[in-house]
């Protein structure tokens, strides 16, 4: 697919070096983990710098480096600006992070809050949605690892996929959330530096006047600020992003792990720092026609342009950037999903009196299990899993209002919150198949809002927030 490939030996050397460094560092950081709180929540005292970096790095996924250029190539200026709006998920989560920490100072997962606030029915719906999304994202990351590493180098799909899973499982297992956060810090610097260099070289080589002239002649819609499809998809993408962040334990676990008073500041800062990145990664796609490149599939436009611009160094660069982006999301997902399964399934359903040691052991086994499970599913290379992530928009967007009202509106009961999630998801999926993917999240969010408002209007209940502390 790319003109340019890394040799097998070079690719293996990079992977082995990263692997040894990360797993070694993970072991070092994890040697003082004694309790489940040390392991799963880094002692609940992560400082501002690490907190901000991990929020940024986790939200910079392979999508940011691949889908931002793809969307720019398809929808032009609105494509990259629309993608930037995913920063709103982080920014709007900032006040929620503070509220979560305040209401549940001893909480572990998003499921803890939903269970205590709403009860069993809403919790069950929420857990189903969370696990569908988490597995979908985990497997798609595993597949992306295999596909990308094999298209950028001589490595096979299985080797690339196995390598990235083994490395991420290795340091997450040994170091827990501390290892995840520390590696995220380094990965965020690597990713941002890498994409900035690619962008500067693009401007230097092609130039804005050539880009603009070529686009005006060959792809005029990409410069059109009234591009209908892009305008149509704009808020659907925003609600998808907000739904992903508001419900996912990846972000809730961080809210519990960050030191007191840190959550709101770090999520806000991370969101603001993340905002320009999709424009930087995306705009290089506007240079494709000037470089006489036509990608065989839209998601390859980013790597193709970068490889053409950077020549022989390009492949190493992209390889390292893509690896960092994948690893920084995969480690977070592994940690957060294993926390959710440990606390919400093992502890709540099977062993309610489990000690910290038991939970710590269970958490570690679950990390290994998730790695093996992801490998097995990703090894079949089921193309439909890419599509699965698309219609998780219908699932995740239905959780936005139950979570917001759950945190701030004491009149919403569990029955109506659960109903909102079910109705929102169902209608979102109907919209997805009947109309198109670009309405799934918006319909889901809208229907969920209507259900929640009806629930609030007719409710005579009034949730007492101190009950959360008592139950916790």
């Amino acid at each position: 697919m790319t003109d340019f490939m890394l040799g097998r030996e070079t690719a293996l050397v990079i992977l082995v070096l990263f692997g040894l460094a990360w797993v070694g560092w993970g072991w070092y950081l994890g040697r003082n983990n004694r309790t489940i709180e040390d392991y799963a929540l880094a002692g609940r005292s992560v400082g501002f710098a690490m907190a901000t970096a991990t929020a940024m790095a986790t939200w910079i996924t392979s999508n940011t480096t691949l889908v931002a250029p793809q969307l720019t190539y398809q929808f032009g200026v609105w494509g990259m600006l629309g993608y930037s709006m995913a920063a709103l998920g982080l920014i709007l989560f900032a006040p929620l992070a503070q509220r979560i920490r305040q209401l549940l100072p001893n909480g572990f997962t998003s499921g803890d809050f939903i269970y205590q606030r709403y009860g069993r029915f809403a919790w069950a719906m929420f857990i189903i949605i969370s696990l569908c999304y988490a597995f979908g994202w985990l497997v798609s990351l595993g597949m992306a690892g295999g596909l990308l590493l094999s298209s950028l180098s001589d490595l096979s799909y299985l080797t690339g996929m196995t390598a990235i899973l083994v490395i991420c499982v290795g340091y997450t297992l040994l170091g827990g959330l501390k290892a995840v956060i520390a590696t995220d810090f380094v990965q965020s610097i690597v990713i941002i530096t890498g994409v900035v260099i690619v962008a500067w070289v693009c401007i230097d080589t092609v130039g804005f006047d050539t880009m603009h002239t070529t686009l005006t002649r060959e792809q005029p819609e990409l410069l059109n600020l009234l591009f209908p499809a892009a305008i149509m998809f704009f808020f659907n993408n925003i609600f998808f992003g907000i739904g992903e962040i508001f419900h996912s334990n990846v972000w809730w676990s961080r809210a519990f792990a960050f030191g007191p008073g840190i959550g709101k500041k770090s999520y806000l800062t991370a969101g603001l720092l993340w905002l320009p990145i999709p424009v930087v990664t995306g705009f290089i796609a506007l240079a494709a026609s000037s470089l006489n490149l036509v990608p065989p599939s839209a998601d390859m436009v980013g790597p193709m342009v970068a490889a053409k611009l950077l020549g022989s160094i390009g492949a190493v660069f992209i390889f390292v950037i893509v690896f960092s982006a994948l690893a920084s999301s995969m480690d977070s997902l592994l940690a957060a999903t294993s926390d959710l399964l440990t606390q919400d399934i093992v502890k709540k359903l099977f062993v309610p009196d489990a000690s910290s040691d038991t939970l710590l052991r269970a958490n570690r086994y679950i990390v290994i299990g998730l790695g093996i499970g992801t490998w097995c599913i990703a090894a079949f290379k089921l193309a439909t899993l890419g599509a699965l992530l698309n219609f998780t928009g219908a699932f995740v967007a239905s959780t936005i209002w139950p979570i917001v009202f759950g945190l701030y509106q004491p009149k919403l009961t569990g029955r109506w919150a659960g109903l909102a999630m079910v109705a929102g998801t169902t209608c979102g999926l109907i919209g997805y198949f009947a109309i198109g993917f670009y309405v799934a999240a918006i319909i889901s969010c809208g229907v969920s809002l209507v259900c929640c408002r009806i629930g609030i209007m007719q409710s005579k209940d009034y949730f007492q927030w101190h009950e959360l502390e008592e139950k916790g």
Partner: protein
Amino acid sequence: MSRYRWHVVPDIAVKIILASLLVFAGCAPVTAANIEKRTSQDGTIVVPWKEGYARYQTLRINSVSGDTLSRHPVVNGQNWVITGLSDGQYRFILSSSDSQTQILSLHVSHYSLTSAFGLFTLGLIMFVYLLVALMKGGRDD
């Protein structure tokens, strides 16, 4: 002067003959064995690779009036993803030095701005409501 004219005449003749050949080549009938007709609502199209394309060097995208809007190289086995086209009719023509063939006819008709802005406005209203809910909740905190 007369000697100059004798030299020029054969040159002009060659040029006229060459020009005619070029014009003739340009007007050469575009073979159109299997012209697929497609439509697009967002200016994007994936042109899949087919057997038999390998003997051509260039994919041209022409407007209905015959102007070539863009040219793309033919890479063996590789599809083309073309994006950013405005409303209109386009012809996709594969050409080599001695022949050309039209493989695709594309009609681009973008979504209406009314429906686009309708969906945008609904989303904006819900987004503003979310902002208000968060700010109100934060204030009552």
